[in-house]
């Protein structure tokens, strides 16, 4: 299709871009071996001696009474719970939209898609005040509940139902006397497993990365998800410099789970994107 030298050039271009995308990661790997003094005085893209990697590990794991583990645990708890609930809700609602005809169906679906266009952060303060009114402010539910709704997840789920679960199958099951719940759990869920994983992954990442909502609804240090906690460490201090090396190492540990999931569950990530893109 293209001649040889052109394709070599393309690969070179790709390499240059890879450097842009990977350089910060390389910088992270270098920086976690330095202490604050070395970070300030030595070249950022090369190692300095002596190494302080172990000191930094020690600092990350023991600072503020070892709260790092708690933050990491919180991140997992929020992301897993919210993503599970969101996937379940999206699957059920998607099922309803895909398999039933009811009054105002297309209007409702358009409305929900429309809400994708409302910046979620714009609602953060009202959500916060509502949550406070029901007495849930500064609890784990304040972070989890608002994120169990994912319009985009619902949209994806409807696509998956449309594609993977033929209407004929539904009708056949109904004739056999199966009720809706049985159809959904016994027949439907196994067929759309791939879709479930995809929606789960997407909401998991969204919750994991969300910063604004926890910032507003949480006050208690012990409830912070990891990004919020690290941002707290990085905040400017009056009497001591922030523990830069510990923050960078903490960030590295914090991004590992998602990086690993990307490497091992790559095909599910792509599945969601394909569905979303071709039907968009």
């Amino acid at each position: 299709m293209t001649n040889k030298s052109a394709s070599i050039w393309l690969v070179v271009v790709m390499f240059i871009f890879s450097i842009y995308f990977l350089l910060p990661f390389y910088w992270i790997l270098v920086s976690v071996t330095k202490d604050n003094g070395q970070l300030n005085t030595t070249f950022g893209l090369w190692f300095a001696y002596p190494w302080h990697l172990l000191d930094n590990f020690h600092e990350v794991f023991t600072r503020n009474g070892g709260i790092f583990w708690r933050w990491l645990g919180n991140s997992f708890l929020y992301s897993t719970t919210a993503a599970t609930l969101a996937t379940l809700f999206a699957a059920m609602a998607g099922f309803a939209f895909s398999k039933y005809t009811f009054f105002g169906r297309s209007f409702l679906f358009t409305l929900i898609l429309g809400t994708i266009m409302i910046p979620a952060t714009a609602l953060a303060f009202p959500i916060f005040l509502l949550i406070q009114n029901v007495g849930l402010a500064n609890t784990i539910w304040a972070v989890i509940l608002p994120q169990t709704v994912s319009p985009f997840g619902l949209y994806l789920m409807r696509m998956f139902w449309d594609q993977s679960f033929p209407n004929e199958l539904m009708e056949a099951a109904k004739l056999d006397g199966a009720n809706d719940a049985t159809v959904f759990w016994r027949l439907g869920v196994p067929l759309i497993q791939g879709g479930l994983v995809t929606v789960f992954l997407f909401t998991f990442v969204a919750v994991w990365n969300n910063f604004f909502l926890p910032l507003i609804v949480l006050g208690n240090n012990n409830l912070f998800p990891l990004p919020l906690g690290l941002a707290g460490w990085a905040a400017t201090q009056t009497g001591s410099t922030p523990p830069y090396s510990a923050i960078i190492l903490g960030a590295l540990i914090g991004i590992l789970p998602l990086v690993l999931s990307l490497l091992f569950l790559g095909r599910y990530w792509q599945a969601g994107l394909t569905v979303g893109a071709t039907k968009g």
Partner: protein
Amino acid sequence: MVTFTVFFVAPVLYAIYLSLFIPQQVNGNLTQVFGGLQNYEWALQDNQFLKSFIHIFFFGIIQIPIMLLLATILALILDQMVDGFLKRFFRTAFYLPYTIPSVISGLLWGYLYSLNLSPLNYIIQQNGGQPINFLASTPMTLFVIGNIVTWTWVGYNMVVLFASLQGVPRELYDAAKVDGATGWNVIRYIKLPLLRPALFLTLLFSIIGTSQIFAEPFALRSIGFVPNDITPNAYLYAVGAQNGNYSYAAALALVLAAVTFIFSSFFLRIIARNSNDQ
């Protein structure tokens, strides 16, 4: 449906209710009193709020095209490549930044941009130059944020576009080849039109994402001064958290939501019309 109502419709209604009140000093104490549309009147006269929109508007019309152009080019190149290690490597490398929480990428890039931790400034200083202060002015700060956002999202958008290219039946290309189409023509007349729906989607999400930028400027505060009016969301946070004026914050949030909604629908309509014409 119920959860949807509770967490999407209720906050909107509550925000509308809230935005109709204003704080007032009554006998020395602050009290919430009914203010009608006063908050909205203030919002339209609020220079900082308007400025935050101007910032994000210019940010958007520069950053989004660059990001999507890059993503498209990279997706096209990736699509040309033969399957194998290199292809997987590039795809993963470009996609990697997307998995990083925005506040963390903001922090890390912040250090890469700071006067002292930045390797670039280190080289400049070693050669006797003055270090660059990347947060010296609002346009520069926006540039810094633009780079962070681009770095994070190019890969994501590229994978979306790449995925839709993969969905194209290979026979189409073979047919084109038989007709004597060159590489460029294949791209111009087959691939780009096929990318259109995916580009819609990425554009839509980019517009919405741009209107929501918050974590990056927040994180950059740890290395220097970032004004409150850098983005609408940052200003919103200041009004709510710093001044404790939730009713005004609610009014601003509704205005922001409305503007974003109108903007993205407007864009979608234009693009949809153009594509129908062809």
